[in-house]
């Protein structure tokens, strides 16, 4: 049984999707238990695989037992790197699954079975992208996750969301096609599609020196950068995530860009190899500069937004810059920081999107005034939001602080001070962004409602002063099914921060046999 775990991660949501798709329209009550059950199986399998990997090294799984891939086969491969990512993806899916219990029904009145089918298929795609060991299968799974993503975004009632989804289809297809083209060139040069085989051929034969491999690399990188919204290829992201249904944005925003970062790192280390990338190609400087620009641009564009959700979307663009830059610093600290940041950023973005979705729904406003006086009305929701925001700013002991900590060390060690400066500046911009909201949430939107001892005394004497204006402490709170996942995500952000030692040490061990990343 234990050998089948890697496949189970994928199969559980796949069959869950079938079941929901068939039985859901007949009886809607089927949906939720199936979704949660399937995702729980995935989560358990992912954790199980990770435990096995940490104990005994990478796990290979050959679908159908075709152990020697002849040209094409379906190989799943789990090592420390994607084991970690798998667990995080599964956690995010489970939390958003719970979050959507009643949300999905409200937002897509007729379509909640369809929503859940797509939701599970998205899980299949994203899990698949993470576990696959084959370059072409990766393309197919990219498209599986993208197609479901397009549909999830277009499901909402906002016309702007639909238009954004169309743009996303166009941009996404261009990105995926570039990736496919790159794989074609790689196949021409190496005759292999299995990642490990390609790696071996590039590393050991003369193929590494050929121009075809270089072209393949450029095409693949361009495709992935489009898909992950790396500035200036980010155009599709803000509107797509800003105007889609809250249940969709809650799962897409934390995961999709992060998974593509993982894919990029996988392609860099597992397909082309760190030596080839950093020694043969050696574009470290250019890419880190691009990442620096992405960080700055994302932060400044976020500063210019008036709608909260779109502001968060631009922050994602900046965070993508963090991770691309970290991965290209060409040392193990930057790489480890980028991988750790995948985990951290997925959780903190989840935290922020859940909180903002709750708040937008509750107040019916998209702009910053939605936050007026919220610390009184919804203290727990705001606490969750605050944890996510502090993580984005980089305040210890949240996960966001520690990822910055490792990325900064990578930047300092490799001498890329422009990247270091951009990281710090973006932290400061995040501080401005979020404290603008905190100020409203603490003190209300109207500065005039302030210090008038007499008036306040008349309204409510010192004996009447309460933490909350309502009669009960949590009277204005969101319901448990939405608040629970938010608080769980917030707790995870802190827990992952406190556990940064074990996590990063596992990641660093993975780089041990890559001397180009620096001696341990």
């Amino acid at each position, binding site marked *: 049984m234990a050998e089948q775990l890697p496949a189970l991660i994928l199969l559980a949501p796949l069959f869950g999707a079938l079941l929901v798709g068939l039985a859901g329209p007949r009886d809607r009550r089927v949906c939720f238990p199936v979704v949660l059950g399937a995702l729980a199986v995935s989560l358990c399998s992912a954790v199980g695989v990770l435990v096995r990997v940490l104990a005994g090294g990478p796990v290979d799984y050959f679908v159908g037992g075709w152990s020697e891939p002849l*040209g*094409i086969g379906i190989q799943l491969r789990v090592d420390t790197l994607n084991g970690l990512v798998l667990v995080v993806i599964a956690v995010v899916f489970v939390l958003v699954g719970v979050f959507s219990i009643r949300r999905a029904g409200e937002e897509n009145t007729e379509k909640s079975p369809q929503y859940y089918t797509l939701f599970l298929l998205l899980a299949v795609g994203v899990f698949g992208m993470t576990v696959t060991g084959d370059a*072409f299968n990766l*393309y*197919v799974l990219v*498209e599986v996750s*993208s*197609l479901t993503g*397009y*549909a999830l975004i*277009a499901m909402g009632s906002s*016309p*702007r969301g*639909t*238009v954004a*989804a*169309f743009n996303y*289809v*166009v941009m996404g*297809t*261009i990105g995926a*096609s570039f990736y*496919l*083209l790159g794989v*074609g060139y790689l*196949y*021409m040069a190496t005759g292999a*599609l299995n990642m490990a085989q390609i790696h071996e051929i590039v590393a050991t034969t003369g193929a590494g020196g050929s121009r075809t491999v270089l072209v393949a690399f450029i095409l693949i990188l361009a495709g992935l950068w489009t898909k992950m919204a790396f500035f200036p290829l980010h155009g599709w992201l803000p509107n797509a995530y800003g105007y889609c249904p809250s249940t969709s944005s809650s799962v897409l925003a934390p995961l999709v860009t992060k998974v593509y970062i993982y894919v990029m790192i996988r392609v860099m280390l597992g397909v082309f190899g760190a030596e080839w990338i950093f020694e043969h190609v050696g574009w470290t400087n250019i890419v880190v500069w691009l990442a620096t620009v992405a960080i700055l641009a994302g932060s400044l564009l976020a500063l210019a937004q008036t709608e909260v959700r779109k502001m968060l979307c631009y922050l994602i663009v900046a965070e993508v810059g963090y991770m691309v830059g970290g991965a290209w610093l060409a040392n193990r600290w930057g790489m480890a920081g980028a991988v750790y940041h995948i985990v951290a950023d997925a959780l903190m973005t989840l935290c922020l999107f859940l909180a903002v979705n709750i708040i937008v729904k509750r107040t019916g406003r998209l702009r910053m005034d939605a936050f007026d006086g919220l610390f009184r009305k919804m203290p727990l929701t705001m606490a969750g939001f605050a944890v996510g925001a502090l993580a984005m700013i980089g305040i210890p002991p949240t996960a966001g602080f520690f990822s910055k900590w490792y990325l900064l060390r990578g930047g300092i060690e490799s001498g890329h001070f422009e990247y270091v400066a951009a990281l710090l500046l973006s932290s400061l911009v995040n501080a401005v962004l979020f404290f603008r909201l905190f100020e409203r949430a603490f003190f209300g939107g109207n500065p005039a409602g302030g210090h008038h001892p007499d008036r306040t005394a008349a309204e409510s004497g010192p004996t009447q002063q309460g933490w909350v204006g309502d009669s009960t402490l949590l009277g204005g709170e969101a319901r448990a099914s939405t608040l629970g996942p938010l608080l769980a995500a917030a707790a995870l952000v802190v827990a992952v921060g406190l556990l940064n030692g074990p996590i990063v040490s596992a990641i660093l061990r993975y780089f041990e046999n890559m001397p180009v990343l620096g001696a341990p």
Partner: protein
Amino acid sequence: MDFLRTSVIPHFNYWIYVILMMIGLWAMIGKNNLIKKLIGMSIFQTAIILFYVSIGVKTGADIPIPAHHAHHDEAAAGAGAREEEDKLDPDAFANPLPHVLMLTAIVVGVATLGVALAISQSIHKDFGTLEEDEILEKIKASTHDG
């Protein structure tokens, strides 16, 4: 002329796919009508399919279907089949793998097109038009009202 002889003619398949791809890309970016953009997208994807198929070609090779079907019935006779395969000359057949890959890619392309068409239908329902500039204008107007 030299360039034509050394670079273009021997690699004409690449030139064709690149030209097709550029046509598709231009339509996706430059066209105003959403359906025309989608047509561009299809051309773009088809160009890549052509590229893949063309790299499987070998001079003088046949389609990759072995003539002997004898071993189909007795799948258990694995060793025999292996021997038989060894006798086949790889150079006599075009590389089947890119074709197989492209079957998947075609399916993916159709699915993408389907989703995109559904979305454009929904856009038409919301805005009453499929021209991009008109849609943007309507969005602008609605945000000003709101």
